[in-house]
């Protein structure tokens, strides 16, 4: 037999339920609201600290980009993406602590040039910091003068190697001015600006980002692990996009990445670790590349083509040639350009430059 309920019971139950919901909402809504507010406040602070950190001096107004040279590598197809209304970048070499905030603002507003400038300048400061450490080390090194361990000569204050290193540091005077007041935390963010520029459709940044996971935060830091695992997912995407846009300096890294694993091949670019090997595609791109490189570097390119053809079936060779032919119009404008062989601004991988 079902229990019966009187109208008074029903009204009472409804009332109790309402009280319960009211109590719940009274506690949960303000809690949730406070938390959301706190998150927003914290994010705002982080964004501000990122732009303000290290730039103790007041940022100067952005000057027209008189001296800014095009950092672009072969076949740069930079797209304005509606950022033409943004102010020009400050002249290159302007102390970063004076321009950092403005560059960050421009970068956030969508300027790939500002993002790329932040990356380039912070990378120069990173290289400079490493060179300073080398100089310091050599200046006091017990074997700095080439003497044997323990010799009197070996403990001279500034040995021959130290002087060599000192000279190298002297040559960095320009970066001394550029980097004064720039913090390690700012330098640690350089890879994020590179990625930002790539996301803002800068093909040069796409290539630079895709070729290395070492341009990000300090190696083996927690941030670096996050950066590297994200890079693994994104590198093939940006390489593809650079290829689609006809950015010729992606060819060399992609040839290396498509070349099947071979312990005797020097894997120059990290892209190799992220891309699935495919010899036929490596061969196709090598054919394209040998048409693009300047005449004085063609011999090596011919050798690579010959090497990559080994083991491919006749129909695969034909298919690869067709692929190379179909891609040619997209890259023809870079023919003979020395920068085809140099992914990234030259100072980043100086050892690969001729």
């Amino acid at each position: 037999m079902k229990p019966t309920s009187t109208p008074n019971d029903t009204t009472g139950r409804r009332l109790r339920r309402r009280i319960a919901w009211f109590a719940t909402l009274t506690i949960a809504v303000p809690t949730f609201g406070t938390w959301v507010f706190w998150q927003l406040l914290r994010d705002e602070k982080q964004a501000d600290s990122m732009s303000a950190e290290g730039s103790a001096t007041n940022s100067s107004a952005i000057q027209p980009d008189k001296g800014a040279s095009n950092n672009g590598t072969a076949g740069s197809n930079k797209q304005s993406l509606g950022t033409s209304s943004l102010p020009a970048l400050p002249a290159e070499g302007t102390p970063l602590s004076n321009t950092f905030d403005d560059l960050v603002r421009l970068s956030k507003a969508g300027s790939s040039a500002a993002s790329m400038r932040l990356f380039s300048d912070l990378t120069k400061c990173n290289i400079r910091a490493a060179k300073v450490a080398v100089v310091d080390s050599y200046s006091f090194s017990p074997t700095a003068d080439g003497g044997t361990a323990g010799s009197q000569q070996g403990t001279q204050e500034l040995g021959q190697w130290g002087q060599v290193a000192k000279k190298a540091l002297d040559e960095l005077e320009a970066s001394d001015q550029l980097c004064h007041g720039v913090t390690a935390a700012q330098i640690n963010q350089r890879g994020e600006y590179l990625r930002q520029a790539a996301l803002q459709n800068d093909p040069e940044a796409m290539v630079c980002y895709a070729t290395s996971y070492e341009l990000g935060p300090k190696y083996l830091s927690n941030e670096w692990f996050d950066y590297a695992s994200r890079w693994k997912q994104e590198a093939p995407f940006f390489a593809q996009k650079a290829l689609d846009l006809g950015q010729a300096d992606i060819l060399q890294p992609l040839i290396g990445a498509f070349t099947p694993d071979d312990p005797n091949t020097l894997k120059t670019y990290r892209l190799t670790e992220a891309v699935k090997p495919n010899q036929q595609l490596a061969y196709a791109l090598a054919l394209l590349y040998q048409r693009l490189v300047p005449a004085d570097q063609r011999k090596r390119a011919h050798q690579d083509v010959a090497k990559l053809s080994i083991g491919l079936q006749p129909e695969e060779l034909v298919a690869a040639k067709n692929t190379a032919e179909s891609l040619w119009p997209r890259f023809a404008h870079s023919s003979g350009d020395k920068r085809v062989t140099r992914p990234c601004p030259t100072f980043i991988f100086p050892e690969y430059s001729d």
Partner: protein
Amino acid sequence: MSSKITIAALLVSIAVVAVVMVLHERSGSSSYSDLTRTDLPAVRTAGEASIKVLPRKEPSASSTQQVSKMPVITYEQFNEQKRCFENQNTPSSLLEEIAELRAANSPVDQNAIRFKETQLADLKKCSENQRAATQDDLSKMLEKVALQGQRAAQLEYAQNPMIDPFHTIDNLERLRAWRDRALSYVNSAIDKGDGEAMVILAGANDPFRCAASNEPFCSGMLKDIVEPDAEKAFRYYYQSELVGNAPQWVKVELSALERLLTQDQIAAAKLAAKTSSSNTVTR
């Protein structure tokens, strides 16, 4: 009844808020800058590419799990495997060298021939499996032996986990595990009075990078996770001398480090070294 409903409703709402908070934190959005949050655009650029850049296949199982599931290995087994791996290409070249020496038919070369033949016989002991091992296999073996607690293996692993530098990105998990373990292995050996571990840690802290040792290796990858610190370097070099059997070059390094430090810092470093040494002895 109403109080039960109220409590239940409260618990549910708190749980919902907590779940939202945890998910938000896990997404990492509040732990990094604005920039890192930007996702890749969903639509690729216009233009038909006739080439598709495909990502490499993900490893099937977690690499750290693979290591933990490996059978027990001794340090001797690892060293044997290492010797086979490092000499993978040697047998053929050894054969050629022996043939050349025999062709020369010089009595002076007889000792060299015998030495190379012994070397060849030694290498021929390597099994097919040992010959087929990759750097990845070797690296996992070393990690396994280190995990088993063998001190020499731990020190070797701490300096160089032998992870293939051309496959770093596939080994991030193991690289992170190495970073988190390396220093504790070295410190634990130091606590037991291991002089080699002291030199290793000193080298990692040494701003001169063991310059007097003429060894480019100098504490290996530990340098990547330890900041240069002249006082610490001095302390551990000094402590290794107290323990005994420190290499000769440590003296040179100590005298060079002295020039970077104040008298107070040197005194503090020496005191710390002596205290640690006496603690080790009395333990």
